[in-house]
């Protein structure tokens, strides 16, 4: 013999506790009030690619050498690169145009994997909606270029790793160049030093 | 005619409204009933019947029988009309318009003829009777307390019999419409 209706009363008590509790305990309310509070993104969060540059000047510090590997590897083919040329028409290791159509990009990160110069990386910016259907969904070079410090702010571990690798590379190359220079002694000191300075890029 | 109307209107508007308060619902009642009778679509007929019940209830209220008017609305609109509608839905709602029309064939025409003969006879009696020419007496009312006293006093046996009848009808309807177990 149970008291009929006690289950309903129990249920009402539960909902009443939830109702009152949501005014007392703030951590019951898990909803984020989006435009006012932003989610703290996990470090591994990724949206679309961007280009990293070193130092303060995007043009001179660009890591990209316009090797076009990412353009070839991109599965939906959303990357478009034109190599820059100087007045004489000679190719420079720098892209003149670098566009990513993020309406096509599928965030697969293959471009990041294949880039040998640690130049293209994944961003965390997710507020990319716009009223312009064609223009603003194609990110061009000025929009894509972001500083290494920004990279450090979004993916600190990964950025430190990348910097370490670049530094190690540079040291290795310097050591190799030094060894080469020591071994080959005199004959072509000028050319060796010039080539090493070109390869290591800006620190 | 028009001047008369205006004169009454200016002299005592409330009296005029009072009179039309009976006539207008009565007109609605007759129109809705006529439409309900000739309507081929059963659902429309039932809805028009509901409208005529509402109009009848308003006529009762306008005549001073408030309690009866409300009972009429409660029982007819709330229960009888809904039961009719429900049984229409339970019995082949797909063949609604196949019902035979009025005045097609001999038997229905005879039925209508009988009805109109009865109407003519009734109207003849009504308009020849001296009793029916009586003017309207002062407004009467039936207070609920008085109705209650009468129901529990002089008419208590009738009330009990009605209660038994309703119980029997409830049980009977349930038994009749119960699904036969094979």
């Amino acid at each position, binding site marked *: 013999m149970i008291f*009929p209706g006690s289950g309903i009363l129990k249920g009402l008590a539960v909902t009443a506790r939830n109702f009152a509790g949501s005014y007392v305990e703030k951590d019951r309310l898990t909803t984020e009030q989006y435009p006012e509070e932003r989610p703290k993104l996990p470090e591994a969060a990724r949206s679309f690619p961007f280009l990293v540059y070193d130092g303060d000047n995007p043009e001179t510090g660009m890591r990209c050498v316009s090797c076009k590997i990412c353009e070839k590897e991109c599965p939906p083919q959303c990357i478009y690169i034109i190599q820059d040329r100087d007045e004489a028409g000679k190719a420079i290791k720098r892209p003149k145009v670098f566009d990513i159509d993020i309406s096509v990009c599928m965030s697969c990160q293959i471009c990041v994997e294949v880039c040998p110069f640690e130049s293209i990386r994944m961003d965390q910016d997710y507020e990319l909606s716009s009223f312009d259907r064609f223009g603003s969904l194609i990110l061009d070079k000025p929009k894509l270029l972001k500083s290494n410090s920004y990279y450090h702010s979004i993916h600190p571990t990964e950025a430190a790793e990348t910097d370490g690798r670049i530094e190690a590379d540079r040291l290795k190359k310097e050591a190799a160049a030094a060894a080469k220079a020591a071994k080959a002694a005199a004959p072509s000191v000028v050319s060796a030093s010039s080539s090493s300075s070109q390869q290591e890029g800006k620190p | 005619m028009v001047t008369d109307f205006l004169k009454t209107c200016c002299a005592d508007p409330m009296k005029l409204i009072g009179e039309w308060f009976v006539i207008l619902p009565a007109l609605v009642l007759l129109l809705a009933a006529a439409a309900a009778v000739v309507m081929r679509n059963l659902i429309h007929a039932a809805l028009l019947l509901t409208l005529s019940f*509402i109009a009848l209830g308003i006529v009762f209220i306008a005549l001073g029988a*408030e309690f009866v008017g409300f009972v009429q609305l409660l029982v007819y609109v*709330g229960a009888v009309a809904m039961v009719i509608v429900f049984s229409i839905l339970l019995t082949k709602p797909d063949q609604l318009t196949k019902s035979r029309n009025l005045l097609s064939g001999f038997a229905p025409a005879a039925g209508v003829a009988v009805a109109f003969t009865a109407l003519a006879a009734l109207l003849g009696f009504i308009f020849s009777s001296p009793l029916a020419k009586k003017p309207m007496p002062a407004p009467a009312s039936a207070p*609920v307390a008085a109705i209650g006293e009468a129901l529990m006093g002089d008419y208590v046996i009738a009330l009990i019999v009605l209660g038994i009848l309703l119980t029997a009808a409830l049980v009977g309807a349930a038994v009749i419409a119960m699904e036969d177990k094979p």
Partner: protein
Amino acid sequence: MISSLESAPIDVLHWFLGLLGSFGVPAWILAIISALIIIGTIIGVFLSLFALTSVMERKILARVQNRYGPNRAGPFGLFQPIADGIKMITKEDLVPRTADWIVHFLAPVVMMVPALLVLAIIPYGRDMVPAELDAGILYFFAVGAGTEVAVFMAGWGSNNKYSVLGAMRAIAQMISYELPLVISAIVTAMISGSLSPSAIVSAQGGFAFGFVPQWFALTPWGFTAGLIFYICALAESNRSPFDLPEGESELVAGHLTEYSGFKYATFFMAEYVGMFAICGMFVTLFLGGWQAPLPFLDIIPSWCWFLGKVCFVAFTMIWVRATLPRLRIDHLLAFAWKFLLPMSFAAFLSAACWHYAGRGPLAWILSLAIVGIPYLLLGNAFTNRFSVSRRTYLFSE
């Protein structure tokens, strides 16, 4: 000061009418104007209550589920009803090509009329009844019966099988729950000896021992009848857990499926106004109407008490909605016929015993027994009947 607040609405009306009268407006026009002002005020108050509730209900439901609820439109989301209204008005009014268009068109109107008409007989405060009717309670139920017609018209006129199914469910539910509703309301009429709402309210006046209000809900029979009335009110206003006529998950909103735009808004409005009307009736019949719960609280005007009680009852309805899941249709009808109807008869009998046993301690024991024993028996029979055993799945695993 206090007495002026108490009768403030009436005083303002009289002042305004006196002002008009001093300009030489004839008396019968004044009578019409006064009626129009009263009607306008009541409709205005209830429509703004509806607007407030439509946002408060969502906020309360959200809080129960540990969410915030609407808080974007205006401060605390209070302008949400305006946004909803603009959305509803600007939406396209769709009528299905095969619909019975005249029935389809008339249904929202027919739905709205009884919802507004029933507001006429509710006593909103001391001497504040728009229409003092001898048979007020009967009027309430007679006019309320129009809602069923409207729901049926909506379901049939849409020419949609889900709508017809929803309408049939709604009619079955409303007819079934009308009986215990009326019987439990009649119990109060029996004790107070009148069918007039204001007489029933004044029968609940006064305080036992100087502080316990003599509301009908505080007696065994009144508590039972009140609970039955409350449950039936939930069912009559199609609110959860009895909202299966418009169950979204099974019937795609039942009779409302083919309605959009302003017609849908009208249905929504009528449903909420009807809910407030039946809350008002519940307060009038069982919670002492406009009477203050404690003697010294009389300083607060009676209409504030009435409004407060109505809002409280509406809040409990939202609370119940947040708690209980929807019933199945056969359980719903069985509950009405096999539990609520016998219980309302028990309440009837219990009230009679209460009256004839002198309303003293003996009456308490007798009426409590008459209500309590059937409750325990029926309730246990029901819980055993519908108890769920552990399911065994034959072909899984």
